């Protein structure tokens, strides 16, 4: 068995094992065991990758290719570069943390963990796929469990939120599929070879400009909807608000990253001319998203809504950076994906903990929680500071890469948008501090809160697991940046 396919097989085995387990205690242990194996493998993968990279100059390493549907030339084809490796690690961390956070899920625990792990299977599969078809399959596998996860274990208007989320994302994937067909049927232009879904092979041909112009927006919107591109972001706030904690974590932390990753891996790599021709248009949308999401977050009253709009803003920055077409910005985009994934997951976990204890997420009703829950409060403040881009945390590294990269364009259009995007750091500070200040600090808003139970061990483990990589990236960005840049290079070359 090759090292990558295990990332799909282990979750599947876990799901099967979960099928046979009974009750909360068994199922959470099974889920945790499976995902800890996954986490161990993903850490191992980082080192294996570094070792392999030293001797292997291919764009992708650990490539494994099995013919699947011969007539369509569909392969089960996997391989990774640095970007997928770090994304996989991110996913594994968040999934494990998510399991810790849902340690006490009471309703249908087995089904909960099954859905969660199926979702993560989709995500893992997506990150290792080199074949557009396989990638698309995993993409949809990742989206669908969301419906059940939000619908069954969610809160508030969960049914409508789940429906909106699923339909918008599947609608986006529908648009994406048209784009994929467009790529597929142009994949042998100039060569006499068969049509192919393989990303690396398609990258060898130059799809005609007219086709690129037609299909780029489809592929881009298809992926970017998942990355909360304005104005296709509205599934995200309500979806997040209704989702149970671990799902919000996984969703904002990982699933939304599929968007940026797909844009990078598919849209821009395979349709470079289209990307360049459309970049201005989408850049405007992404910049609007950055500022607009931040402004939207200021006005929200529900903690999860705040965070959801913050995600719109931060992921807008990812798309924004990707559209800048240079190494620094792309490096920033990827680090931002990682950083945002971890931080949002932390935020959602914290919100979940607060909500689980106080049964409200209304900013106006909360206050002074830090006094009662010092650990949660402290982590909340740290997360907030990290989120607004404080040096020493991953967010800073990401944002600075993005800003410096974006600043390499010296025309007025890019300058204005860049400065607009930079201004979001101020607005981010406003809403983050408003939230932190209101709910964690200040006098205790409700005397009943004085006896809230303290953070439990599994909550602490979950949070600390997420915090560690945030700090590591923030303090020691050098290795990560170099590792990523090497992998970015071949993708960037297509655009230049």
């Amino acid at each position, binding site marked *: 068995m090759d090292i990558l396919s295990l990332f799909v097989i282990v979750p599947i085995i876990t799901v099967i094992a979960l099928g046979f387990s009974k009750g909360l205690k068994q199922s959470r242990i099974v889920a945790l065991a499976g995902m800890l194996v996954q986490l161990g493998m993903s850490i191992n993968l980082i080192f294996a990758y570094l070792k392999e990279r030293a001797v292997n100059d291919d764009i992708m390493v650990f490539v494994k290719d099995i013919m699947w549907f011969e007539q369509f030339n569909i392969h089960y084809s996997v391989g990774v570069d640095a970007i997928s490796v770090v994304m996989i690690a991110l996913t594994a961390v968040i999934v494990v943390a998510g399991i810790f956070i849902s340690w006490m899920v009471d309703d249908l625990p087995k089904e909960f963990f099954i859905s969660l792990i199926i979702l993560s299977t989709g995500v893992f599969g997506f990150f290792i796929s080199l074949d557009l078809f396989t990638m698309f399959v995993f993409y*949809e596998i990742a989206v669908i469990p969301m*419906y059940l996860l939000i619908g*069954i274990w969610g809160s508030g208007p969960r*049914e409508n939120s789940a429906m909106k989320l699923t*339909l918008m994302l599947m*609608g986006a994937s529908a*648009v994406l599929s*048209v784009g994929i067909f467009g790529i597929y049927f142009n994949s042998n232009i100039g060569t006499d070879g068969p049509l192919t879904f393989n990303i690396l092979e398609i990258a060898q041909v130059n799809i005609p400009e007219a086709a690129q112009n037609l299909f780029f927006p489809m592929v881009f919107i298809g992926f970017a909807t998942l990355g909360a591109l304005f104005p296709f972001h509205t599934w995200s706030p309500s979806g997040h608000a209704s989702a149970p904690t671990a799902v919000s974590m996984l969703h904002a932390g990982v699933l939304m990253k599929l968007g940026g990753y797909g844009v990078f891996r598919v849209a821009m790599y395979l349709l470079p001319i289209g990307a360049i021709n459309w970049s201005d248009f989408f850049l405007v949308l992404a910049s609007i998203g950055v500022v607009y999401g931040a402004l939207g977050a200021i006005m929200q009253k529900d903690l999860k809504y705040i965070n959801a709009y913050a995600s719109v803003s931060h992921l807008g920055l990812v798309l924004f950076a990707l559209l800048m077409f240079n190494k620094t910005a792309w490096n920033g985009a990827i680090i931002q994906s990682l950083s945002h994934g971890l931080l949002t997951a932390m935020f959602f976990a914290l919100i979940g903990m607060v909500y689980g204890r106080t049964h409200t997420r209304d900013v106006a009703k909360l206050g002074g929680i830090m006094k009662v829950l010092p650990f949660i409060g402290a982590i909340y403040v740290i997360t907030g500071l990290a989120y607004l881009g404080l040096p020493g945390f991953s967010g800073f590294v990401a944002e600075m890469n993005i800003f410096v990269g974006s600043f390499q364009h010296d025309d007025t259009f890019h300058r204005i948008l860049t400065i607009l995007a930079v201004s979001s750091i101020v607005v981010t500070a406003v809403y983050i501090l408003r939230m932190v200040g209101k709910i964690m600090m200040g006098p205790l808003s409700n005397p009943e809160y004085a006896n809230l139970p303290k953070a439990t061990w599994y909550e602490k483990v979950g949070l600390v697991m997420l915090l560690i990589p945030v700090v590591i990236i923030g303090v020691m960005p050098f290795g990560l940046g170099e590792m990523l840049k090497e992998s970015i290079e071949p993708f960037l070359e297509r655009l230049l």
Partner: protein
Amino acid sequence: MNLESFLLMRYEIGLLAVILLLIVFEIFLNKKHKGSLIDIAIVLFTIHTIIGFLPLADGSIFGGMFKTNALLHFFKSTLNVGVLILLLQSADWLKEKVVQQNKSTEFFILLFSSLLGMYYMISSGDFLMFYIGLELATLPVAALVAYETFKQDSAEAGVKFILSSALASGTALLGVSFLYATTGTIYFDAMAEVLTMSNLSILGFIFFFSGLAFKISLVPFHFWTADVYEGAPISIASFLSVISKGAAVIILMIILFTVMKPLMPVWIKVIYMVSIATMFLGNIFALRQKNMKRFLAYSSIAQAGFILLGFLSNDQLGYTTIIYFVAIYIFSNLGAFGVVQAISLATGKENMDDYEGLYRTNPKLSLVMMLALFSLAGIPPLAGFFGKFFLYTAAASQGYYLLVFIAVVNATISLYYYLLVIRAMFLRKNENAIPFFKSQPYMRLGLLLASIGILVIGMYSPIYEYIYSISNSFLN
């Protein structure tokens, strides 16, 4: 003519033997043991199905009126498996409701006759055989639709079905007569050689097409579908929606790609329009349905619209995807209908609202339903996804990106209403949920087979490759 050439009709002869044996059993079986007829029928049909998988030569008999080839063998076997699953799913219903009325043998005879008609219809080599097969496939079903003689709905559905289908076959016949007028022959091969594009032939095609479109329930020839499904017994609705529709799709494919080949520029346009209309209307009507049978009726209308995408690709890719999708569709729809059947049988409830909270009481049934619906909606890794994806590919291969776009939008709409059922079963909690019940072994086996089909056909690519390898065979 010799025995060997008769053996080309092995399926037909086998099925006929089953029918005759059943009549014999009916005559000689003690009245008290009439219930065991069901088991006998199932066993006999299983044997027939298994024999069907044995290899068989290609060929044609009766001067080309009856043709057979690898594709048809495959498809007949697929229909057999479908009918077998259907029988398994309806065995309990027969035992509980029909045996008392002493009508179970008729049920099998009518059902198998209809299947026999389909065999002949898809194997036909001229319009006469086609017509006879079509009528043989349709008329017993009409009787079956009205089978629950004590129910007004059933009778009403029967009336609607028989009258509408008579109109449809009348129209189709008029079309055939026009085609006959332009070419002077009713043989497929001969007609294909001399058919040219002319006003009369086009008119003939359109009339003929409307007759078949009625069977596939394509918009605007679909109106009967929902009413008949709702009124008919669930097994029959299921039969209409999977077996009957599947057979009609195949013969439509054969006729369009062989006989009507000269008219291709015309029928491509017709298929294009009808496909869009069918997808949209089917979906939009399905949105607000509360009755599960009606719901599945509209959903199957919409699915038919997707199938048409495969017709746009005039090559092996197109044929393969059509057959592949039909096979997948049969399993998926049987899964859905099977669950509806099981619940209806246990509780008499057929409305979506009654399904609320079903997962908490009957998790396995709900899971089968979910698999079936997600397969219909085209969610990976279930078979329906592969079927739909390849249909899109077929259409896109000819550059019909706009149509593919419309189709994927429709797939999203369809996801909405499939999710409504999922919502009722999984998301809702209900005090008065359908209590836990245990289905009979036949039903469980039927659902299991359908689920396996849903899970395996898509991911296991050799099935697709096999279909691909035989899909060309009907052309010669």
